[in-house]
C-alpha cells in the first residue's frame, strides 16, 4: 500500500509563482504542502536578472494600458487580451506588495523603486522607450525568490524539499485529486491528496542544447499533464534570448541594453538600427534574435568562426556597470573570459523561455475542451508561471513580463483557491489505480538491466531540437524533427540505469525527467510543423508572413496520437477597448 497524505492544497514547484501562491494559501490558514525538487531558493526564478515589469511611472509617466499594448504587440497578437489586461492592471499592486514583503529593490533619489528601460517597453503605444522594469541590480529574480521564501517562512508554509512529483491522480470524472510523488532522499513514493493541486513547475528549456535554463527545468508539469490527457497550448513558441554567452549559454540580461549597451557585428556596425529603426537594440526579443541570426548567416558574425556578435557596454563606464550590472561583469569574466568594463561580450541567441504550456484561465484553473466548450475547467487542477499558458505572452514574451506573470497569477490562483473554502470541502475518494502509472514507470526502470543511457538519449534530444527547431524553421527541417523526436521517444522507453540505491538516486531522477523532456519536445515540434505562418518566435522561412486569416488561433497538442486542436484567441479585454491586430514594427 502506498502511503497517502492529505492536504487542502498542494503546490508543485517553489519558484516565484509557486511561492507567491503558497503564501496566499498559508496565510489564509489552509493546510498546504509545497513540493520542490530543490531547496526553494534554488528554483530557477533565482536566475532572473533584469527586472519585473510594472507601470509604476517612477521615472517618467507610464500607464498600465501602454504596458498592455506593448505586451499584446510583443505577443504578435496571440496573447489573450483579457489575461494581459488583468496582468498589466495588477502589476503595480503586486510589485508594491513585494516591496512591503522586504524585497530589496534599487532606489531612486526620491526613495521610490528604480526602473530601467527594457526591450519592447514603450510610452504612449510605441512612441518612445519607457523605464518600466523594476530592478534589484541585475539580481531581481534572486531578490524576489529569497523574499518570497522568507515570507513563506514567516507564514509557516510546509515545504517538501527535494521531492519530485511523478504523475497526476485523476479519477473517472476527470477530476484531479493530487499527485504521486517521490522523496528523493529515500525514494519513498507517496500519494499527496489534495482538494486543489497547483502546478508551478517552470519551463522545459532543457529540451534544447544551448539554453539559459537550469538543469532542473525539465518540464515536469508539462509531462505530467500530457500523460494525464491534458492538452498543451502553443508549444511551438520558444523564446530565444538575444544575449546568451557564446558557447556557454549563460544569460546576459536585456538590462545591459536597457542601461545603454549595444550589439555590434564584425564591421563594428550597430546593426539593430537597420532592423528596428525606432527601438533599435531594445526591440522585442524575437526581432533582435532573428536580426542577429541574419547577421551571422550573412557572414557578419564575429570571431574566428564568425559565429557570434558582440555586446558592447564598456561605454557605460565602470560606475554604472558595478552598480547596476555587477553580476553581468562576474558572468562575463567567468564564462567568456572578458572584462566587460573594457571589452565587449560575445553573445548568441539562446533558448530562454517557453511561451506555451498548460492552458489556464485567469484564476489559474486548468482548462481543456470538453463537449465543445474550450473553456471547460479541469476540476482540482491549477497551473501558474512558465508551465502555464494563460496566455499573456502569446507568440513572444516581453522582457520582465515573466516575473510579472509569476507574481500576478500565482497570487490570483492563490486567492481563487482561498475563496473556495476548501477546509469545508471533503476529499473525493481516490481511485484504486491512483498510483499505477508512476509505479509502472518506476518498475520499468527497476527491471531494466541493460539499455539506452539516459544522458545520451537526453543529449541527442537536445541536439535534434536545436537543429530542427531553431530561430528559423521550415517544413523539411520540422518534418525531419518530428520523425527524429519520435525515434528518441522509443529510445527513452528502453533506458536503463546502473544505480540501484534508494538513497538520493539522481540517476533515477534524471531518467524520470527524460520522460517529461520527451513529452515537451514532441509537443513543440509537432505544433511547430503544423503552424504554417511566421508569428513572434515561430519564424518559418517557407511561410515568412503572419497569417491572421488562418492562424490567429491557439494550438492545443494532445499526447494521444500527437493530435492537434485549435481554439480562438481572446481579442476582447474586459474593461477597455480591444487592440486589433496590425503590422508589427519596432
Amino acid at each position, binding site marked *: 500500500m502506498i502511503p497517502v497524505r492529505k492536504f487542502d492544497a498542494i503546490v508543485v514547484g517553489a519558484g516565484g509563482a509557486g511561492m507567491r501562491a503558497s503564501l496566499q494559501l498559508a496565510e489564509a490558514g489552509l493546510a498546504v504542502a509545497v513540493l520542490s525538487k530543490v531547496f526553494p531558493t534554488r528554483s530557477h526564478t533565482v536566475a532572473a536578472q533584469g527586472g519585473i515589469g510594472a507601470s509604476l511611472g517612477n521615472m517618467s509617466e507610464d500607464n498600465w494600458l501602454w504596458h498592455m499594448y506593448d505586451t499584446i504587440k510583443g505577443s504578435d497578437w496571440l496573447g489573450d487580451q483579457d489575461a494581459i489586461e488583468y496582468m498589466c492592471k495588477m502589476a503595480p499592486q503586486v510589485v508594491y506588495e513585494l516591496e512591503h514583503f522586504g524585497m530589496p529593490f534599487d532606489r531612486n533619489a526620491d526613495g*521610490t523603486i528604480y526602473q530601467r528601460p527594457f526591450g519592447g517597453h514603450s510610452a504612449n503605444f510605441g512612441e518612445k522607450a519607457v523605464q518600466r522594469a523594476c530592478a534589484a541590480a541585475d539580481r531581481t529574480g534572486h531578490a524576489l525568490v529569497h523574499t518570497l521564501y522568507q515570507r513563506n*517562512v514567516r507564514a509557516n508554509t510546509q515545504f517538501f524539499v527535494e521531492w519530485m512529483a511523478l504523475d497526476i491522480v485523476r479519477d473517472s470524472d476527470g477530476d484531479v485529486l493530487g499527485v504521486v510523488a517521490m522523496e528523493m532522499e529515500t525514494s519513498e513514493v507517496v500519494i499527496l491528496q489534495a482538494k486543489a493541486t497547483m502546478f508551478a513547475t517552470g519551463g522545459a528549456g532543457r529540451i534544447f542544447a544551448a539554453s539559459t535554463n537550469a538543469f532542473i527545468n525539465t518540464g515536469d508539469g508539462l509531462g505530467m499533464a500530457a500523460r494525464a490527457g491534458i492538452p498543451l497550448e502553443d508549444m511551438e513558441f520558444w523564446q530565444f534570448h538575444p544575449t546568451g554567452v557564446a558557447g556557454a549559454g549563460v544569460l546576459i540580461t536585456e538590462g545591459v541594453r536597457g542601461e545603454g549597451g549595444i550589439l555590434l557585428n564584425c564591421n563594428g556596425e550597430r546593426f539593430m538600427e537597420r532592423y528596428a529603426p525606432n527601438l533599435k537594440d531594445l526591440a522585442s526579443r524575437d526581432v533582435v534574435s532573428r536580426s542577429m541570426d541574419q547577421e551571422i548567416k550573412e557572414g557578419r558574425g564575429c570571431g574566428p568562426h564568425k559565429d557570434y556578435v558582440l555586446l558592447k557596454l564598456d561605454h557605460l563606464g565602470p560606475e554604472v556597470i558595478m552598480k547596476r550590472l555587477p553580476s553581468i561583469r562576474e558572468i562575463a569574466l567567468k564564462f567568456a573570459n572578458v572584462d566587460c568594463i573594457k571589452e565587449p561580450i560575445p553573445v548568441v541567441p539562446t533558448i530562454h523561455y517557453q511561451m506555451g504550456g498548460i492552458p489556464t484561465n485567469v484564476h489559474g484553473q486548468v482548462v481543456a475542451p470538453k463537449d465543445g466548450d474550450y473553456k471547460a475547467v479541469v476540476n482540482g487542477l491549477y497551473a501558474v508561471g512558465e508551465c502555464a499558458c494563460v496566455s499573456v505572452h502569446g507568440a513572444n514574451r516581453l522582457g520582465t513580463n515573466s516575473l510579472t506573470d509569476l507574481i500576478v497569477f500565482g497570487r490570483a490562483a492563490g486567492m481563487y483557491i482561498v475563496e473556495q473554502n476548501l477546509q469545508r470541502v471533503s476529499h473525493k475518494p481516490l481511485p484504486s489505480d491512483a498510483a499505477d502509472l508512476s509505479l509502472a514507470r518506476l518498475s520499468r526502470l527497476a527491471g531494466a538491466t541493460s539499455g539506452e543511457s539516459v544522458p545520451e538519449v537526453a543529449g541527442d534530444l537536445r541536439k535534434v531540437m536545436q537543429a530542427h527547431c531553431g530561430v528559423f524553421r521550415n517544413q523539411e527541417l520540422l518534418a525531419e524533427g518530428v520523425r527524429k523526436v519520435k525515434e528518441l521517444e522509443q529510445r527513452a522507453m528502453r533506458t536503463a540505469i546502473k544505480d540501484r540505491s534508494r538513497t*538520493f538516486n539522481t540517476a533515477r531522477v534524471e531518467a524520470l525527467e527524460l520522460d517529461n523532456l520527451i513529452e515537451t519536445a514532441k509537443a513543440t515540434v509537432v505544433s511547430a510543423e503544423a503552424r504554417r505562418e511566421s508569428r513572434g518566435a515561430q519564424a518559418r522561412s517557407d511561410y515568412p508572413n503572419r497569417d491572421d486569416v488562418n492562424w490567429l488561433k491557439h494550438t492545443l497538442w494532445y499526447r494521444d496520437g500527437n493530435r492537434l486542436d485549435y481554439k480562438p484567441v481572446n481579442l476582447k479585454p474586459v474593461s477597455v477597448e480591444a487592440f486589433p491586430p496590425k503590422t508589427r514594427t519596432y
Partner: protein
Amino acid sequence: MKFRIYRYDPEKDAKPYVQDYDVALDPHDRMLLDALIRVKAVDDTLSFRRSCREGVCGSDAMNINGKNGLACITNLNDVKEPVELRPLPGLPVIRDLIVDMSQFFKQYHSIKPYLVNDSPPPEKERLQSPEDREELDGLYECILCACCSTACPSFWWNPDKFVGPAGLLAAYRFIADTRDEAIGARLDDLEDPYRLFRCHTIMNCVDVCPKGLNPTKAISKIKEIMVRRAV
C-alpha cells in the same frame, strides 16, 4: 582529467571511501561541474546536487582540493590534478557529495529571516533612500550554499548553538534594513554566548564565499551595534 572523489552510499558501504576517476573532457568543458557531469555519464551512481550552473542557485557547493566552493564556477584551469572532491565538511553525509543541510537551514530560520514591519503599508512602495538601500549591498546576495558555515570551526563544534556566518549575515541584512522594525528583538536574540559570540574571527567564511561576501564584517557590525546600545 583525474579525480579523487569521496564515495558513500549508506545502503552498501560500511564506511566512506575514495574513488579514482580519469575522464576525457570535451574542449568546451570549462568548469568543474562540466567535468563532474562527464564523470556521471561514465558512472551514474555518483551523486551530487546541481541546478543553475552559473553560481546563483547555490546547489553544488562542495569541498574542492580542501577548500569549499561551487563546482559550476570553479574553472578547470584553476584546480590541481588529481582534483579531490569531498562533501561540505561538518554536516552529515546523505550520499557521496550530498550533505544533510537541515542544521544549516535551522540556524538560518532561527534568526527570523524576513522583514518585520507591522505598520500598515502605504498604498505604494515604502520609501528608502539610495544610501539606506546601499547598506544592504553585500548582505542580500547570499545564495545559502553553506560554503561559509561549513568552513567555520565554530560552526563545526556547535552547529546547534552557533548561528554561523550565513545566518548571521542574514541577521545583519535585516538589522541594516531601514524598513525593519524588530532590531531590538533581533539583537536580544543574538546576545548569547553561543549564537553570535562563538565567532572568533577566523575568517574562513570570507575566504570561501563564492559570491565575495563578508560575513565576518557583518558579524562585527552586529557586535558594534550591541556595544553602542549597551552604553
